[in-house]
């Protein structure tokens, strides 16, 4: 690694830290319904939206009402994307003349974009029409991200309010997150990406005759608008098959830097929003620090592993699956950020990383997408672990656990456990099923431990709504399309509904002033304890599975074994 590359890492994390309180403060104003500099333009649009949809913006919902509205809206979105794919053959905006999508693939893709996973069993440039990409996928990119932000804002209200009943209005949170946060940022990022060479048009593929006389069909399409929200909304679904490794999707080092920044921007800033809304920015920074420490530790291990020599190929610095314009450092930084943040876009093929680099990417996902995590989803997942940590700390000193002055009781812990167990169970049970059936095994592209890693990665990615892959696995089979689709439903709503239930049970509680026995949650000790709990839970759940995949592959690679 060169000093210049180290400097890029410093610039990246430095900028992230600087932007966190800026965007965090802005978002806190949005969730509180206050005026911002965008209000003169957007407030009229917002008001018209409420009028057209019949939403009474000043009527708040209890947690059940909030959850019902959220689920109904998301299920409806699923059916629209599903239907668009089945009808794209006869719909306009299909200059390449792509046919109707097969039903299990359409189920998988509709689920994938509705749940903010953006797992892709298909190749975008040869499967989906521009109509499907815009009216289906791009819309879900926005609203699935806005759904995540809505859930976390509801949870924060549940923690911040005292002896109340309502946790906000889902429709208002959805609209405000989309209009004030996601749309303006996407608009700016999309145009900057175009300046770097990301295309934005509605043309059919262009035929070129290369220097050696071969015909090369160059794909076209409205890519930039979709790529901007793909990163900002931690969606990750690419316009083209190889995602941001594609030169049309990520043409320059600058476009790469900005896309990486966009992956972590909103999840990082939400920690500050949280701090402001509960009246202590310090609480937010403690969570931010815990996330950053885990990310940078994982990233460092990945870099060391990737720069080491691979005895199987006899060289160091393997560039399989990587692009020259990014090199190893930027490929690994992206790999760490995209798996930590439940984004799932890639700028290099994760499957060709060294076993440990790929394994840490997998671990980032398996920990539950809480190291910054998805927009909203990362913070509410992390707050589940905060509650667990407070609970365990309370048990250790023999006091009633409390967080922000509110008692943590049986119901909150039950819900927290549910939110942790459901996705984990889906990963392990489905991986086991795929590992012993012909339908599961026949899709592998690599054999040996790497083949098992492909399967484990797929279910980890789907259940935790990440969307990246060890992409050698042929996931476009009915077996994988259905199973992975079910895993995404479980991983999304199996967490969101318990989280909203916690918001509902916390909001009615009264707060007690801190006593000498209160365990402080705004210091380094708490951050350390939080990290320890996350790693213990993650290790206990997944260490055996990781041993069979990346860990044994690393040991065999070191011995020069190939498969």
């Amino acid at each position, binding site marked *: 690694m060169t000093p210049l590359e180290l400097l890029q890492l410093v610039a990246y994390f430095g900028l992230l830290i600087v932007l966190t309180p800026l965007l965090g403060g802005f978002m806190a104003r949005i969730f509180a319904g206050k005026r911002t500099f965008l209000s003169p333009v957007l407030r009229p649009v917002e008001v018209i939206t409420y009028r057209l949809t019949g939403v009474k913006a000043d009527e708040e919902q209890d947690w059940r009402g909030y959850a019902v509205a959220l689920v*109904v809206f998301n299920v409806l979105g699923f059916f629209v994307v599903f239907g668009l794919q089945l009808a794209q053959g006869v719909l306009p905006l299909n200059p390449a003349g792509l046919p109707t999508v097969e039903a299990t693939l359409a189920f998988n893709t509709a689920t994938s974009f509705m749940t903010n996973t953006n797992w892709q069993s298909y190749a975008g440039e040869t499967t989906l029409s521009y109509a499907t990409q815009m009216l289906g996928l791009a819309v879900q990119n926005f609203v699935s991200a806005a759904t995540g932000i809505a859930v976390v804002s509801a949870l924060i209200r549940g923690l911040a309010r005292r002896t109340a009943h309502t946790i906000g209005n889902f429709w208002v949170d959805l609209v405000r997150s989309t209009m004030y946060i996601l749309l303006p940022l996407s608009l700016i990022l999309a145009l900057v990406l175009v300046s770097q060479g990301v295309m934005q048009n509605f*043309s059919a593929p262009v035929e070129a005759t290369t220097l050696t006389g071969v015909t090369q069909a160059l794909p076209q399409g*409205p890519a930039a608008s979709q790529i901007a*929200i793909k990163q900002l909304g931690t969606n990750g679904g690419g316009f083209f098959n190889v995602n941001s490794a594609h030169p049309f999707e990520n043409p320059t080092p600058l476009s790469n830097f900005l896309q990486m920044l966009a992956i972590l921007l909103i999840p990082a800033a939400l920690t500050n929003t949280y701090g402001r809304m509960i009246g202590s920015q310090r609480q937010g920074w403690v969570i931010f620090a815990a996330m950053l420490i885990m990310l940078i530790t994982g990233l460092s291990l990945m870099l060391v592993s990737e720069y080491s020599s691979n005895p199987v190929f006899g060289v160091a610095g393997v560039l399989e699956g990587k692009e020259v*314009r990014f090199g190893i450092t930027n490929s690994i930084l992206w790999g760490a950020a995209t798996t930590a943040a439940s984004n799932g876009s890639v700028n290099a093929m994760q499957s060709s990383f060294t076993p440990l680099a790929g394994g840490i990417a997998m671990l980032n996902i398996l920990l539950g997408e809480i190291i910054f995590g998805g927009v909203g989803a990362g913070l509410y997942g992390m707050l589940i672990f905060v509650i667990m940590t407070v609970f365990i700390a309370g048990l250790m000193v023999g006091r009633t656990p409390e967080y922000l002055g509110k008692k943590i009781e049986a119901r909150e812990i039950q819900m927290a456990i549910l939110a942790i167990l459901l996705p984990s169970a889906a990963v392990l049970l489905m991986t086991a099923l795929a590992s012993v059936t012909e339908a599961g095994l026949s899709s592998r592209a690599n054999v040996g431990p790497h083949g098992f890693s492909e399967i484990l990665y797929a279910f980890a990615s789907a259940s935790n709504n990440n969307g990246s892959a*060890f992409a050698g696995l042929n996931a476009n089979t009915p077996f994988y399309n259905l199973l992975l689709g079910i895993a995404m439903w479980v991983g999304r709503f199996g967490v969101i509904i318990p989280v909203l239930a916690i918001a509902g049970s916390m909001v009615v509680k009264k707060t007690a002033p801190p006593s000498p026995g209160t365990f402080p949650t705004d210091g380094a000790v708490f951050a350390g304890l939080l990290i320890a709990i996350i790693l213990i839970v993650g290790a206990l759940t997944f260490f055996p599975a990781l041993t069979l995949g990346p860990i044994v592959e690393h040991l065999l690679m070191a011995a020069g074994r190939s498969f």
Partner: protein
Amino acid sequence: MKTILTALRMLVVLTILTGILYPLVVTLAAQVVFPVQANGSLQIHDDAVVGSSLIGQEMNSDPRYFWSRPSVIGYNPLPSSGSNLGPTNATLAQVVEERAVAFREAHNLAEDAVIPTDMLFASGSGLDPHISPVAAQLQVARVAAARGLTVEQVNALVDSAIEAPQIGLLGQPRVNVLLLNLALDGLQ
């Protein structure tokens, strides 16, 4: 029922906003401000599209041109793809060995000559337009001989084709193979 109706209306409004207006506004602005980039950075010579400066091309081992990186899709972009072969894959180990032998033979290199890894391993997209400066320099003698140019002439061309890290900080030094080859054709 009322919730379903609200959800339906909300989805329609948000679809118009994010699925239609947003991409249209971006398209309009992009086509006005950055028309070349928005349409795929096409390279047009004598009224014919010869490629895109962002997309690499298969050089089919033509000795008169600089070669691109290995690609598992032969630089055919529909669809883009990498190999996804893992770090302990025996097939990949064998392919890498064969590529090394072929590259050394084509360039009269010693048997223990170190070849830059970008010429041994396939890119993630299969469309990588760049190679490392070292990989270009190793090809200079072959290209010069095939074209009847002096090594100095070709070297100068390669030097001027090296792109520095963007804004002095981001990315790696690199050479765009298609642009270099077009410049080469322009010499004669």
